[in-house]
C-alpha cells in the first residue's frame, strides 16, 4: 500500500523533502490529537521519531473515529494527515469505511485515501493552525490579485474594518486549492492597505505560510470560489462542524447566461452547491435577495436546511472629493464638451450593460438634430459590436467619447459634468453607477426593474424598459429637452442623501453574517 507516512528515503534531496512532510504531518496530528483527545492525545515518549509518532497518533485517532463516528473528527483527521481538505466523495467513502473497519483497518484506509490529496493539495509539508474560536474569512482572490472591481471593492472596504474591530483570521488557498493557508505579507497589504499599497507585485512567492484549518467555527465567503475550492467547501459545510456564511452578489450565470462569455459558468455551478450548504446569505440588494430566495425555494424538495437569506444592500459611500468643483480631472473631456449637454454612461462594454441600445437611441436623437455629447466611461468588457458601432458613428461626426481606463477622479468629474447619466443594464446585482450619479445630484435614466429600480425608488431617476429602444430614446429626449422634467429630477437627485457608509455596512454585515448566523428562519 502506498502511504504518505513513509520513512525518510536515503537520497539526499528526496529524503529532505520526505522528512519535511513527515515532520509536518507529525506536528499537525499532534495538534489534532490534542483537540480531539485532550490529555490522552499526548505522545507518551517524546523521543519517538516522526514516523513512529505519526503511527502512534494515527492509531489513537483512528480508534476514536471508528468508535465515536463523529463526522467533524473524521474531517479534521483527513485534513491534518493530507494537509488538504477532503472533498465530499472523500468524506462519504471515509464514513463508509469507518462503519465497516476496525481502527487498525481504518488507519490503512485513511493513509491510502489521503495520499493523493497530500501530493496534490499543496500543503503536505506545511504547519497547521487549528481555528475554532474566531471566524475564518476567505479572501483568496482579493489577496492574490490586483483586480479591483465590485467584489474586491466590497472586501477591501469591509474586511479591514472587521479586522480592526474583531478577532478574525483571513485566509487564501494553497497553490492547488487543497486547503486554506495564511496570507503572505504583500497579500495582506492587498486586503488591508489597498488604498496605500495597491501597487504590490502581482507575483508573490517564496514566503512561508501555514495551513489554517477552520473547525467547529464560522467560515465567511465574501467572494465566489473556484470549482475546485467549492468541492472542498461543500464538504467543509457538511462535515467539519463549521458553517459557511456568504455575501450573495447575484445569480447572473444561472438566470442570464447569455450576458456572460460563453465559456463561463463552471465555477458558478460548483458555487451553487456551496450556497446550498450555507447558513446565511447576505445579498447586496433586495433584488439579489429574491434571486437567492428563488434558488432556496427550488432546493426545498431536497429537504436540506435552508440558508437564511438577508437583504443587506451595499452602501453608497462617496469620496470626499467627489463634490470638489475645482477638480478638472480631464482636460480632454473639458475641451470636448464645448458647451453641449453631456450624457454619461458608466460601465464595462459587455452585452449585459446594454450600451448598444444607448448608441441606437443616441443616433436617433442625433439624426433628429438634437445636439449633445455622449461619454462612455469604463474599461474592459468583451465580445460585442460596441467598438464597431462607435467607429461607424464617429465617422458620421457624432460627438462620442469613449474612455476605457479612467481614474476615480476622471469618473467623478464626468458624472458631475453630465446633464444626466444613463444606465439601462439588463441585469445587476446592485447598480452602483446609479447611486453614485444620484449622490452628486446628477439624474439617471435606468432600468425599471431589479436593483436599479430599488435605488431609483426615492427619486432622481427616470425608469425605462431596457429592452425597449423607443422608451430609452424618449427618456433621453425628455431629459435633454423638457426643462421642467429635468429640473424636477435634478432636485430629487440633489435631495437624495446617502447616509450609510462602509463603516455602517461593515458593522451591519458582521451582525448579519457572524453574530446572527443560523438564527431564525429565512
Amino acid at each position, binding site marked *: 500500500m502506498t502511504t504518505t507516512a513513509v520513512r525518510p528515503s536515503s537520497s539526499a534531496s528526496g529524503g529532505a523533502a520526505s522528512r519535511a512532510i513527515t515532520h509536518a504531518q507529525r506536528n499537525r496530528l499532534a495538534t489534532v490529537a490534542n483537540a480531539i483527545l485532550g490529555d490522552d492525545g499526548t505522545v507518551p515518549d517524546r523521543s519517538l521519531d516522526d514516523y513512529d509518532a505519526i503511527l502512534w497518533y494515527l492509531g489513537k485517532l483512528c480508534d476514536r473515529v471508528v468508535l465515536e463516528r463523529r463526522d467533524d473528527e473524521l474531517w479534521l483527521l483527513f485534513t491534518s494527515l493530507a494537509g488538504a481538505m477532503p*472533498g*465530499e*466523495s472523500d468524506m462519504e467513502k471515509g464514513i463508509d469505511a469507518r462503519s465497516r473497519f476496525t481502527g487498525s483497518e481504518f488507519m490503512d484506509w485513511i493513509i491510502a485515501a489521503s495520499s493523493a490529496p497530500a501530493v496534490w493539495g499543496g500543503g503536505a509539508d506545511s504547519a497547521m493552525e487549528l481555528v475554532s474560536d474566531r471566524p475564518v474569512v476567505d479572501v483568496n482572490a482579493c489577496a492574490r490579485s490586483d483586480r479591483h472591481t465590485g467584489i474586491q471593492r466590497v472586501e477591501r472596504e469591509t474586511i479591514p474594518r472587521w479586522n480592526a474591530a474583531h478577532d478574525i483570521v483571513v485566509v487564501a488557498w494553497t497553490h492547488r486549492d487543497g486547503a486554506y493557508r495564511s496570507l503572505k505579507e504583500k497579500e495582506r497589504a492587498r486586503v488591508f492597505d489597498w488604498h496605500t499599497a495597491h501597487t504590490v507585485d502581482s507575483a508573490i512567492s517564496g514566503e512561508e505560510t501555514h495551513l489554517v484549518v477552520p473547525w467547529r467555527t464560522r467560515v465567511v465567503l465574501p467572494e465566489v470560489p473556484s*470549482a*475546485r475550492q467549492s*468541492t472542498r467547501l*461543500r464538504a467543509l459545510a457538511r462535515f467539519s462542524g463549521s458553517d459557511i456564511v456568504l455575501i450573495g452578489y*447575484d*445569480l447572473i*450565470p*444561472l*438566470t*442570464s*447566461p*447569455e450576458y456572460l462569455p*460563453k*465559456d463561463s*459558468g*463552471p465555477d458558478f*455551478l*460548483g458555487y*451553487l*452547491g456551496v450556497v*446550498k450548504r450555507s447558513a446565511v446569505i447576505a445579498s447586496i440588494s433586495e*433584488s*439579489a435577495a*429574491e*434571486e437567492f*430566495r*428563488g*434558488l*432556496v*425555494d*427550488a*432546493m*426545498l*424538495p*431536497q429537504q436540506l436546511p435552508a440558508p437564511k437569506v438577508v437583504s443587506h444592500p451595499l452602501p453608497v459611500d462617496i469620496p470626499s472629493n467627489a463634490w470638489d468643483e475645482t477638480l478638472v480631472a480631464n482636460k480632454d473631456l473639458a475641451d470636448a464638451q464645448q458647451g453641449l449637454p453631456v450624457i454619461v454612461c458608466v460601465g464595462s462594454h459587455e*452585452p449585459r450593460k446594454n450600451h*448598444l441600445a444607448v448608441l*441606437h437611441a443616441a*443616433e*436617433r436623437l442625433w*439624426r433628429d438634430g438634437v445636439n449633445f455629447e455622449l461619454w462612455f466611461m469604463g474599461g474592459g468588457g468583451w465580445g460585442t*459590436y460596441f467598438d464597431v458601432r462607435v467607429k461607424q458613428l464617429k465617422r458620421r461626426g457624432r460627438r462620442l467619447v469613449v474612455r476605457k481606463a479612467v481614474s476615480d477622479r476622471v469618473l467623478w468629474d464626468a458624472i458631475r459634468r453630465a446633464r444626466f447619466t444613463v444606465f439601462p443594464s*439588463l*441585469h445587476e446585482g446592485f447598480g452602483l453607477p446609479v447611486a453614485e450619479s444620484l449622490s452628486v445630484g446628477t439624474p439617471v435614466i435606468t*432600468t*425599471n*426593474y*431589479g*436593483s436599479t429600480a430599488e435605488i431609483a425608488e426615492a427619486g432622481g431617476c427616470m425608469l425605462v*424598459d*431596457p*429592452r425597449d*429602444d423607443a422608451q430609452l430614446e424618449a427618456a433621453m429626449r425628455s431629459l435633454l429637452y423638457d426643462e421642467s422634467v429635468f429640473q424636477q429630477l435634478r432636485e430629487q437627485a440633489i435631495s437624495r442623501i446617502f447616509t450609510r457608509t462602509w463603516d455602517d455596512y461593515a458593522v451591519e454585515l458582521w451582525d448579519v453574517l457572524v453574530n446572527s448566523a443560523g438564527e431564525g428562519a429565512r
Partner: protein
Amino acid sequence: MSARTARLTALARVARLTGARRRQWDARVAMVVAAIETDGNGSAARTGLGGLASELERGGVRETWLALAVLGGALPGSELVVRVRRRLELDGGWAAINEILAARAKIRHQGTVEVSLAHHLALIDVSGLVDGSIRLVGRGAAIATVRQWSQRPEARLVVWTSRGDNLRPITAAEAAHLDVDAPVGRADEILVPWQSSYLLAGIVDDPDRADRAIALGVYSGNGGGTLGFGLDPVLNAEDEAYYNGPRRYAWHLAVARSLPRLVAGSTRAGLEYQGWKRMLPAVGLDGPDIRVVAFPLRELRSSPDWAAATDTAWIHLIG
C-alpha cells in the same frame, strides 16, 4: 448610408449571386414575402426585393426574424435580430437587406440546405432524446410523451442540425430509435417555424443553439413551451459542472425562460421551477406560465391516465 445607396448596394450584392445560388435567393425572397402576406400584414403591392424591403419596413420584429431565418440560412441569435431591427429603424428596408446579405455570406453551407416554412405546425424539439448523449432528468417520460404527441397531425419532430444553426425534421432512423410513427425528412432539409408552436421536449444546453432558440422564443412570434422534469442538473451540478465543456443547463433554462409556457412533469419539478421563476424578476422577466402535470409512474405509460396527462400537457403548451 442613404436609402438610395443601400438599395444599390443590395442589388449589386444580389447580382453577384449566380446560377443556383441566385435561384435559391429569389425563391427564398418570394417565400418570405408570401408568408408575410399570408399573415395578413403584407401589402402585395410590390414583389421581389423591393417588396421585401417594404414588408420589412411595415412589419415588426417577427418579420425581421423570419427574413433572417429564411434568407440568412440560419436561425438568428438575439444580437443579430436586434442589430438588423435597429438598422431597419435607422436606414430602412434596403439597409436591413444588406445586413441580412452580410449575415448570409458568413454561412458557408447555403447551397446544401433546403429551407421550408413550417406553417401552423407544432415543432417538437427532441434534441438530446434521440442520441441519448445528454443526461436528462425524466428522459424516459419525455420520450413516452413525445410518442403520444407525435400522433397528432400538426406535430413535427425536429432536432438541431449538426452545425447547430437550424432545426431539421428527424430522419427515419431517428424516428425508429424513438419508436415513433411520425413524419420524417432529410438531414439537409431545414424547417423555419412561422405562426407555429415550438415545443422543447429535449434539451438545448449549448450556447450557440440556445442563443438561436432564445431568439426564436422572444422574437419569432411563434408560441410554444417547455416540457420539463426539474432542475436537477443545476441544483445538483456539484462536481459534474467542471467537465461539461461549454454545455450548461442554465442555457436550457434561458430557452425555457423565453417561451411562454412550461409543463412540469411532477410536483417536485413544479416546486423547483417555481423557485427558478422567482429569480427571473431580477432580469425583468416573468418567466413562463407553469403548470404541473403529474405524469403517472413508469409502469403506467400505456394507461389511459398517461394519455390524459400527455393531452393535458399538450393543451397547456400549445395554448
